């Protein structure tokens, strides 16, 4: 193989170098574009996370568990039974108007507007039954002679009211119950169904 003259060799090297430089510039440019794209993706991701955090705050889930919310409610009810209903503009009502217990039938006065269910408890803390009852309803439950207290929950299942049955001798109350005695409990709207 015959050697090329030095002038031709130099021109070829220059052309290669130029081509390499061109390619290198393209690589660098591509990397910058990629880096910019990566940066934009990261910014978008962080914006999404920020939006999610903001939305989660708008629909906050209470950091307190069910048992802790019950403690809050009981404290509020005890304060009410001491005659305290908040101060400095706060109005805290935790007590339910005492439901009447007549001959084993428990009758409620109209439930608070945000009520969704009522739970009956025995004195030892055992749960007797849970019934669905919306705000404004006047449910009654039969065959619950040993109910010690009742708790009203809202639609989220959070406890919102506490009530202590008022035992009334049969024939004393003027509030009609009209419910037939049954071996299980049920709820209705101020009348038998």
């Amino acid at each position, binding site marked *: 193989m015959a050697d090329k003259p030095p002038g031709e060799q130099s021109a070829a090297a220059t052309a290669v170098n130029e081509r390499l430089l061109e390619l290198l510039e393209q690589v660098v440019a591509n990397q910058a574009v990629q880096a910019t794209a990566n940066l934009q993706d990261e910014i978008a991701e962080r914006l999404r996370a920020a939006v999610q955090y903001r939305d989660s705050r708008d629909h906050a889930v209470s950091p307190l568990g069910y048992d802790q919310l019950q403690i809050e409610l009981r*404290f509020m009810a*005890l304060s009410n039974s*001491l*005659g305290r209903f908040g101060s400095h503009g706060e109005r*805290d009502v935790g007590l339910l108007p005492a439901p009447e217990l007549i001959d084993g039938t428990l009758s409620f006065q109209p439930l608070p507007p945000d009520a969704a269910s009522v739970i009956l408890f025995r004195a030892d803390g055992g749960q007797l039954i849970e019934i669905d009852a919306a705000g404004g309803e006047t449910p009654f439950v039969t065959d619950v002679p040993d109910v010690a207290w009742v708790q009203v929950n809202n639609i989220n299942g959070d406890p919102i009211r506490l009530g202590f049955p008022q035992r009334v001798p049969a024939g004393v109350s003027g509030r009609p119950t009209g419910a037939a005695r049954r071996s299980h409990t049920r709820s209705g709207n101020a009348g038998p169904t």
Partner: protein
Amino acid sequence: MFRMLARLIADPTLTTSTAVPDAATLFATHPIQLSRWLEEAWAGGGVANWPAFGVQNVALGDPAVVRRLQLPDGLRNDTLRSGIAVPSGGPVIPPDFEPPPALGNGLTLAWDHLIYAYLLESTGIVEIFAEVLRRYLVGETLDAPSIDTLVWARASEELFFRDPPLFHIGGLTSQLRPDARAIRRNAYWRMFGSDLPHPLPGAAAGEQPWKRDAGAVANTRFLELWTELLRQVWMGIENDRNQVGTNPTDPSYVAYLCQTLGEMLRLRRRGGMLAREEFSAVTALSWFHLTVESDTAVVHDLRATAGGVGNPADRLAAIGQRVGIAPARHARELFELADLVSPVLWFIELDQFSSPANAETLFRIFGVVNPVVARTMIRIVDLWQSATGERIKDSAVRAPQRAAAGTPAQPTRLPAGPAPAPAPATLSPNGSSSAVRA
């Protein structure tokens, strides 16, 4: 209890938060009816009748103390009933003797914790009204009272400054303990290890028989533990939103403090001790609290009105001026503290905050829809710090008297070995560091 009764007159079901207590009707009621209504309230059981919520009922030392000391049902509900109820047409003055059921009957009413009486009596309210009554009864150094004030004065003297009717639950004074004020101081000393900031009127200097009689069993650590609890709760409130840094909040320690305080208080109540004394004290103080809670006839006659949004402490200060007795400087804080601390101490005694999870409700604020417990504690911390000067919110500050008083509430290290033999039991020293500074 009398503030409760005034509220019941306006709100018999106790569920209308905006109801305004009807003090005028209550003060117009005959004292024998009021005395009998107290019997009915006692028979209701108070916190002893409060559901135990699945845990052992530890109220009042022995919940049976109420039933064993009450008037028999037949007597109380028949010839000795109070006749206090709201007629269908609304309250009238003077109130009629109404048919049963009496107000509050069937409701699970509670009476205040003894701390309520202690904090209120620390204002000097009993001494001021004792002098007001004395002046009304023996001379004319005050302006002539209206008929409403005259009726109030008669009822106040009958209910609190003479022996109550025989065999009634409020009848504490006897030949063995003739002074109702000394009886209350004895109860405060045993439960809280603290005396009132002012001396007992008429007592010789340094004479404090209520402490001598109590023996060496007073809860002298109560204030130390209570203050430590407030400090820990405030630390929890401060760090409630702390998600990144070191969080010094310790729910277990808060629960431990509540448990210790509860055990300490229950120890003084074993077998139902102090139940009657507590009931009598809180009823007496609630009467005078109700008198200055609004612009009642007494407040009007003594020219001490403070308007619809006025403070009881302002009215008390003005009444004190009429008779030459100044109330405690921090009376404003004490009035509000009395209302706030009472349910908290009941809950502590009932073991409701003795688990770390439940103790968290004392300081969890962030994200809680209605943090009624934590909100109450924040207000208590504010008022306690203002009333006592104890820097609860400043974790870097420790009051020097606490270090001098003995060991801190939480030991920083385990004991190195067996403790030295205890010194012979002696009477507790006179509490020089009262909870409040008059």
